[in-house]
């Protein structure tokens, strides 16, 4: 499940930590028990503390990886002197709790951002809402988007310059209620697997370069598929 995948990244980094601890420990046998306990607690912490330092790292990496020509992030996202709940006061950031650095929603709509989809978003492990609409982001939507955003509920990438195909793995984002991909340069087929998204209420792909049969999503009207290359089936004319 996506949850396990998201956590496994943590475990892998923890295990390499454990490896280096063990080397040290073999030299000083007395402290062996203490180290075992400490590392066990570190591993446990992956389940209990789901992201606080990782969330700070997430936002810092996003800021570093994107071009910000209007200085929107530069002014508000100040990483000097971070305290409990500091990132919750960054513009565009909504936290789960006011005094805890754990990002719930990220809204960076219409701030002129350029660059590729920031993979660092994976470190915002409690993220449910992402709005990158109306920017100049380009390149492909990551093929492993389900690993980057396992709990995403609303995803808006509309009005950007994303190209390539809609990744099949997006069908593993089981909690998706709203997926907006309008006004990009997405091509190829819409994965039929999108019909697995039982919570999906809003799905729009207008103004792209998509072709082929649309997935079986009875709740999606014909208008949501308008202005593409050659989509067919569903509410649209049947495929030949």
């Amino acid at each position, binding site marked *: 499940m996506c949850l396990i995948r998201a956590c496994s990244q943590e475990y892998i980094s923890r295990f390499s930590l454990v490896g280096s601890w063990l080397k040290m420990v073999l030299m000083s046998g007395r402290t062996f028990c203490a180290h075992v306990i400490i590392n066990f607690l570190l591993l446990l912490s992956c389940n*209990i503390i789901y992201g606080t330092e990782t969330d700070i790292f997430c936002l810092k990496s996003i800021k570093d990886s994107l071009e910000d020509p209007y200085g929107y992030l530069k002014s508000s996202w100040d990483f000097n002197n971070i305290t409990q709940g500091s990132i919750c006061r960054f513009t565009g950031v909504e936290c789960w*709790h006011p005094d805890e650095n754990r990002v*719930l929603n990220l809204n960076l709509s219409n701030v002129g951002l350029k660059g590729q989809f920031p993979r660092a978003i994976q470190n915002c492990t409690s993220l*449910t809402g992402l709005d990158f609409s109306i920017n100049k982001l380009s390149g492909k939507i990551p093929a492993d988007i389900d690993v980057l955003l396992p*709990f995403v*509920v609303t995803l808006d990438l509309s009005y950007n310059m994303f190209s390539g195909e809609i990744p099949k793995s997006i069908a593993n984002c089981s909690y998706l209620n709203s997926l907006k991909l309008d006004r990009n340069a997405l091509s190829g087929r819409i994965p039929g*697997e999108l019909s697995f998204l039982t919570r999906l209420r809003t799905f729009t792909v207008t103004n792209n370069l998509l072709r082929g049969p649309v997935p079986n999503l009875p709740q999606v009207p014909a208008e949501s598929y308008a202005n593409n290359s050659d989509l067919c*089936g569903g509410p649209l004319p*049947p495929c030949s």
Partner: protein
Amino acid sequence: MRWKKTELADMQMGSFFLLAILAFGLVLNVSANTEVEVLYAWKANLIDPNNVLQSWDATLANPCTWLHVTCNGDNNLVRIDLGKANLSGPLIPQLGQLSNLMYLELYDNNISGAIPIELGNLIKLVSLDLFSNRLSGHIPDSLGNLQRLRFLRLNNNSLSGSIPRSLTTIATLQVLDLSSNHLTGDIPINGSFAFFTPMSFRNNPGLKPQKFPPPPPMFQIAPTPSAKGPSSS
């Protein structure tokens, strides 16, 4: 003027009873109506080692000059901000009489006992933050009446029982956190709960994981042409 002994004794008895009734009333608050009365009754039930409630003066007509509470333009109480105040003691049913309350911020304290069902009367409530306390008992069904609620955070308590289905009717709910409690039963997935992921429910060992309905076929099957006439699309 000199009182007779019997009159004095009567007066003493009378004033004793009056005091007893007042004290009883302060503690149990048989009929608290004004916002000052409600809050002062609650204060009487709380242990406040940091003296954060020092400014809560019962002689005033309204609580609007008190610290940690906020009023609107009509001098009605709309906010209580007592997060991280080191308070212990219960929530009292009379808090449900604060009919204009929009924000109840009581997180990170040692508040114990149950969530009073009367909190379901606070129909203007937008934020109910009782997280990180020692609350026990069930989440009242009546919270489903809070039809303007946007934030419901009850995490990190000892709440038990099942998640009331009535909560799924709150269409305005944006942030739900019931994690780290002792809740049991199913996790609803209908109504507003379609927006919530396992993160809202984790660390409740007795809660059953959300079920996903079986997926429909990937593509719509095109209707087969009839032998008699032209097929319709």
